[in-house]
């Protein structure tokens, strides 16, 4: 890289930000569960995998129409939320949060097995195949998947924000996120809140699964590797914030791009390492993430 011209820089920043939106739905799913119940969901990657497989089933095998297929997939994964809440999380209400965390670890292992049981081990077609041709704006190249993902993520976040601001359930979710015990005392049905959180999380993981499998063109186990960066993105943005999930994801994407740009001068693998450094810096300055709320503790 001889000189860093303006076009390259713009390209890197925009493409990076768009790539970042690929992680946004998944991070959102993670944040929402954390926000509603303070549970760190170690099964987020598995939800992504299952979501992608379910979307495959409905778009490729069941419905011939793509839109109908995706709708069915979203409805199907939406049912997973209440199921998980009823089966494994409700007994742990008002129990130590660590128990629920362990449950998500067990859930992750089980879901991984379930996916292999149902969908086998051969890579399956991606539910949506995005156009191979990138979108060009002048000299700038934008992979079509990430343009779609930016669009989808924006819609997803808008819908969620509306849901949080305008509906009663959204309000109770916010209340439960502030203080679960207090919310319960005020008559908020925390069970419904947690079930809704898992539903939203499963649905947005499905969206993420559709987008991310589109990057590679197939669905298989490797999606679990991709999912690992969700924790970092969630932290950067702030664990309890919807906007933070998006901001964090975009920052990670941009960080990766910049890291990739600097790779020749720093060393191989810097593309993956730079976002982590970025995250560390953010955490040093704002320990609660960029948009996370700082909690004031009382004795």
């Amino acid at each position, binding site marked *: 890289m001889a000189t860093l011209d303006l076009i390259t820089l713009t390209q890197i920043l925009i493409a990076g930000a768009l790539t970042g939106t690929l992680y946004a739905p998944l991070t959102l799913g993670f944040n929402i569960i*954390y926000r509603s119940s303070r549970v*760190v969901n*170690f099964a987020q990657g598995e939800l992504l995998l299952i979501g992608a497989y379910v979307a495959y089933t409905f778009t490729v095998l069941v419905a011939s129409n793509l839109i109908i297929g995706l709708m069915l997939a979203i409805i199907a994964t939406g049912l997973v939320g209440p199921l998980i809440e009823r089966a*494994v999380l409700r*007994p*742990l209400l008002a*129990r*130590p949060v*660590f*128990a629920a*965390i*362990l*449950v998500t*670890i*067990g*859930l*992750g*292992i*089980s*879901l*991984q*097995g*379930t996916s*292999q*049981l149902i969908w*086998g*081990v051969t890579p399956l077609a991606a539910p949506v195949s995005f156009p191979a041709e990138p979108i060009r704006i002048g000299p700038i190249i934008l992979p079509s998947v990430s343009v779609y993902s930016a669009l989808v993520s924006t819609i997803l976040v808008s819908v969620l924000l509306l849901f949080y601001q305008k509906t009663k359930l959204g309000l109770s979710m916010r209340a439960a996120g502030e203080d679960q015990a207090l919310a319960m005392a005020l008559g908020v049905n925390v069970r419904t809140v947690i079930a809704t959180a898992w539903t939203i999380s499963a649905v947005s993981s499905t969206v993420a699964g559709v987008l991310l499998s589109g990057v590679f063109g197939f669905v298989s186990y490797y999606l679990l590797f991709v999912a*690992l960066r969700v*924790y*970092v993105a*969630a*932290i950067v943005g702030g*664990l309890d914030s919807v906007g933070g999930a998006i901001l964090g994801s975009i920052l990670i994407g941009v960080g990766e791009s910049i890291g990739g740009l600097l790779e020749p001068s720093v*060393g*191989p*693998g810097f593309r*993956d*390492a730079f976002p*982590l*450094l970025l*995250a*560390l810096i953010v*955490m*040093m300055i704002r*320990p*609660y*993430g960029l948009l996370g709320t700082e909690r004031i*503790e*009382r*004795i």
Partner: protein
Amino acid sequence: MSAPSGIYSKSYEDEIAIARTPIERLALIIGSILLLVFPLITPTYYSVVAIYIFIAIISSIGLNILTGFAGQVSLGHSALMAVGAYAAAVAARYAGLQFLPAIFIGGLAAACAGFVFGAPSLRIKGFYLAISTLLAHYIIFFIIHLPSVAPLLGVPHGFILPDVALGPFTISGTFRNLYFYYIALGLAVFSIITAHNLMRSRIGRAFVAIRDNENAAEVLGINVYRYKLLAFTISSFYAGLAGATYVYFVRVIIPGHFELRVTIEYIAIILLGGLGRIWGSILGSFIIIILSEGIRYITVTYLYVISPEVSAYVEAFKLVIYGAIIIVIILTEPYGVVALLRKVKQYFKLWPFRY
């Protein structure tokens, strides 16, 4: 003749003894004898599984001190094990150190790394802290794989450790696993006793105070940040010790031994066993390792009755069952298996009365 009921100590020595009642003393003696003769009367394979359990105990005690006692969540545990393992390997290979000094160096190196891992805990709390340790994990792996470092550490071919030597004795050949069983047992017992004593000392009490309420602890005169760093350091020492022992056991060190999934497995161990209890680490290690071995056995022995063809389809059941058992155990006893045992103890103590 008129001995008071309950547990009654006549001296301070009695009060702080590890085994305080005749039953406990008896259990200790019988348990010790069983553990000592176990590898002599069972096939080597059992000793090997036991070695895995011992190493898991050492490592999970470390994690339990940090998470269970001091209340700091970490996702960098396997990276710290890697630091310990690589430090021991380097010390053994390039400085020609023997087994015990080498694993001790491994523990110390991990402790130093843990000190750094813990540095953000001044400002960062809860899961945010866990992620900062996760970042440290990635950074350590980035360093291990750097082109300038990797060849020195034998990445990725694997780095072969010398035979375990204790003074003039070199342990190799047919009875290697047998001897290693006793070494691992010794290290596990050492870890259990040191951790147990440490946790009922001033330091342990301070950890618990910080876990329960940081601000209150501060008010009580505990230097919270210093004790948090101490918790990270002590915890990492055990991690490093376990990592070093593990690579000595398998003879070869590769980064693949210390992937992120290993950390998650250790988190599962301490959560399943019970947080804030040394017994929790012991039980958790035992259950998780026996479970994963046992389920593979059951798969091979029984599940293939339905379909004799070995297939990925049948193997998938194994994962489903494994995850399900973990969930069932924790739903039965959200505070870990240790709490369940305590209830049983209570039940027999009161028997034949209900309460």
